[in-house]
C-alpha cells in the first residue's frame, strides 16, 4: 500500500521537523528552524499526497471512499490539519518557535497512528453517508485548532513565568511576547469553536438521518458537548470577564484534554453508538 509508505514518510518528516524546531530553540539558531519550516512544507505535500493516494487506492480496491473513516485515517487527517494550521500560524506571526510546541503534537499523533490498523476496509452501512465527509472534516479542523491553542498555551505559561521574573535569556527568551501568545491562544479557539459547533451539528443531522434522533446522549455526543461547554466558558470568561494570560491558558489546555477524551478516550475507554473511530 503506497499510501501507508507515504504516511510513514510523513511521520519521519514530522519527527525531523519537531527535532529541528526543538534543536533551534536550544541552540538559539534561527537557521535550524528555517530548515524545520521547509521540512513541514514537504510533510504537508507528502501527507496531502498520501491522503489522495489512499483515496485513489480505495477506488482501486472497489471500495471507493474518503479516507477519514476509521481511527488510523482520523489520526493522520488530524496530524495533516495540525501541520497545515501550524504553517499558517508561523507565516502569520513570523515566528518559528511555535513549531517546537505544536509539531510534536502532529508527530506523536502519527506515531500513535502507525500502531493502528492501516488497511483500507469497506464502509459498514451506518457510515455510508455524505454527512460522513463534512462531519469528520469540520470536527477535525476544530480539533486541530484546539491543539494549536493548547500548544501555544504551554508556551505562554513558560514565557509568563520568565517575564514575571524579568528574565529574557535562555530558550524561553526566544518565544514571542506574552501578549502575542495570549492573543494566539484565543484566536486559535475562535477558529476552532465554530468548526466544532458545525461538527456537532452535522453529527446531529447525520444521526437524525440514520437513526431518527439528533441527540441521544451517547458518550461521544456528550463528550463533544463537554468540549463545547468548556470552550464556551473560555470565551465568556475571556470576552466579558477579561480572563487573560494564565487562567485563559490553563482553560485552553483543559479544553484540549477534553478534546482528546472526546476523540480517543470515548472510543478506547467507553462504549456507545459511535464506535467506528475505534476500529
Amino acid at each position, binding site marked *: 500500500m503506497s499510501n501507508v509508505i507515504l504516511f510513514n514518510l510523513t511521520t519521519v518528516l514530522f519527527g525531523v521537523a519537531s527535532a529541528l524546531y526543538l534543536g533551534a530553540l536550544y541552540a538559539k539558531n534561527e537557521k535550524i528552524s528555517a530548515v524545520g519550516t521547509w521540512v513541514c512544507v514537504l510533510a504537508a505535500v507528502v501527507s496531502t499526497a498520501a491522503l489522495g493516494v489512499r483515496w485513489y487506492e480505495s477506488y482501486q480496491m472497489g471500495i471507493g471512499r474518503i479516507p477519514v473513516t476509521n481511527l488510523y485515517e482520523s489520526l493522520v487527517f488530524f496530524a495533516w490539519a495540525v501541520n497545515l494550521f501550524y504553517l499558517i500560524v508561523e507565516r502569520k506571526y513570523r515566528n518559528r518557535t511555535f513549531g517546537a510546541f505544536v509539531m510534536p503534537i502532529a508527530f506523536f499523533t502519527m506515531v500513535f497512528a502507525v500502531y493502528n490498523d492501516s488497511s483500507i476496509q*469497506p464502509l459498514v*452501512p451506518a457510515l455510508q453517508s455524505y454527512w460522513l465527509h463534512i462531519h469528520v472534516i469540520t470536527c477535525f479542523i476544530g480539533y486541530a485548532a484546539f491543539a494549536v491553542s493548547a500548544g501555544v498555551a504551554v508556551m505562554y505559561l513558560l514565557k509568563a513565568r520568565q517575564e514575571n521574573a524579568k528574565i529574557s535569556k535562555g530558550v524561553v527568551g526566544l518565544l514571542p511576547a506574552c501578549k502575542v501568545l495570549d492573543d494566539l491562544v484565543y484566536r486559535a479557539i475562535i477558529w476552532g469553536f*465554530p468548526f466544532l*459547533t458545525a461538527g456537532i451539528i452535522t453529527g446531529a443531522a447525520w444521526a437524525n438521518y440514520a437513526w431518527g*434522533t439528533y441527540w441521544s446522549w451517547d458518550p461521544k455526543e456528550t463528550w463533544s458537548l463537554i468540549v463545547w461547554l468548556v470552550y464556551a466558558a473560555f470565551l465568556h470568561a475571556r470576552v466579558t470577564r477579561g480572563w487573560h494570560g494564565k487562567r485563559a491558558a490553563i482553560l485552553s489546555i483543559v479544553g484540549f484534554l477534553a478534546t482528546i477524551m472526546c476523540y480517543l478516550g470515548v472510543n478506547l475507554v467507553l462504549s456507545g453508538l459511535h464506535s467506528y473511530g475505534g476500529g
Partner: protein
Amino acid sequence: MADEKRTPSPMDRVWDFFISVKLAIVTLIVLASTSVLGTIIEQNQPPEKYHQIYEDWAFALMDRMNLFDMYHSAWFLLMLVLFTVNLSCCTIDRFPKMLKVVRNPRTKLDGGLEKSLSLSDRWKKKGNLSEWAAKYAEALSGSFSKPKVTEGGGEVHLYAETGVASRFGVYVTHLSIIIIFIGAIVGNRFGFKGYVNLTEGDSITQVPVRGGIAMQNLGFTVRCNAFTLETYPSGQPKAYKSDLSVIDGGREVVRKTIVVNDPLQYKGIWFYQSSYGQAGGATAQVTVARKDGSQVRTLALAANEPVPIDGYGIVRGVDYAQNFQGKGPALQVVVVKPGQPAATFWLVQGRPDLDRERGDSLVFSFRGLSTKMFTGLQVAKDPGVNIVWLGCALMVIGLMMAFFLSHQRVWVRLRKGTDGRVEVVLAGTASRNRLAFEKRFEKLQTGVKAAGQ
C-alpha cells in the same frame, strides 16, 4: 447622586444574579463536569446489570440521584433551565443597551473619548477647515460607512464605522440556543419515537412507543415486502435493505427500499433501517413428483414438522448439511408409510434426480432452504426537528458574526488652531481583533493624510 446610594431590593438582587456572566461561566463548567458522569455510568441499563457492577449502597445512592438516567433527571433539567434563564436575562439586560449604542453612536470626538482610544494620530494642515473636512470624509468612506458629520463650536467631527453586525453575533448565537431548546420541547411534546420488528410480508398500522408501554397509530399501513442483507466479498455487511410499501386509503401510495442513511418518510413519519434478524426457523422447499416426472406438489418443511401426503405417508425434514459429502447443501428427510419401517435418506440440492435411485412411487427433490427475515425499524415523528435545524443554522451564523466580524469605528476631528492652521485628530477603535485593526488603522492614516495632496 451619592446620597441616593441605597441597598438593592431583593428583586434587584435576583435580577443581578441572573444577568451575571459569572453565573453563565459557573453553569457552563458545572454542566460540563456533571455531564461526564453519564458517560462513565452507562445510562438506561436494566437494574440487574447495575447490581453486578455496584455495591448495594452505591446502587441505592446513584439510583436516588437519578444517575442511571441523569440527562433526563430533574436536577439536570433544572440546570438547563437555569442556563436558559441566565441566557435570556443576559440578553434582555444587554441587548437594548447595545442597540442604543449602535443606533446613537458617539459622533463627536471629545477629549474624554480621545483619551480612551488607543489608536490616534494628529497633524496640522494649512487651508480651509470645511474643505479638509470634505476631503477626509471622502477618504474615510472608501473602507468605512459614509461618515456622519457633526459641526459646532468651530469644530467638525467625522464618524465612520464598519462591521456593526459583529455586535449582534452574540445575540444571534444566544437566541439560536433558545430556538434549539424550543425545537427539542416541540419534538418531545408532539412527536414520538418507536421501534418495531416487521417480518417479511407482514404489515403494521401502529407502533409501540415509550419503551413499549403505549401504541401509536400511524394512520396508514406499512408493509415489509422483503429484507435483504448484502455483504462484501470479505463477508462484512455492505447493505441492509428493506423493501417497504405504504398503504393508505386501500392502495399502495409509496414503495421504497430503505437502507441505513436513507429512510422512508410519509405524512411526517420516518422509518429508519435499524436492525434485522431471522423470523422463526428456516423452511426447506421440497418438490414432489411422480416417476413419470409430473409434479404433485411443493412442500415447505419446517424442522422436524411432519407433513402428510394423502395416500402416501408422512414426510419430515430432520437435518440439514451445508456441504453433504462434498456435494453441496442437502436435506435429510424421514418418510413414514403406514405399516412400513421409516425410511431415512438425504436429498442433495444440486441433484434433483438423485431420489429416483430409491425406486419409490414418489420422487423428492430438495430445492433449497428459505429463511424468513424480519427488519427492525426505528419509527419517528419529530415536528420540532426543523426548528432545531433553524437554531443550528443561526448558531453557526451568529458565531461567524461574533468572531470574524469586528465593529471598527474611526473619528476625525478638525479644529482651527491658534496658529491659523487646521488641527486634525484621527482616532479609532475595534470591538475585537485589535492587532488586525492596528494594521488597518495604519493604512487609513496614510490614506487620509495623503487625501487632497
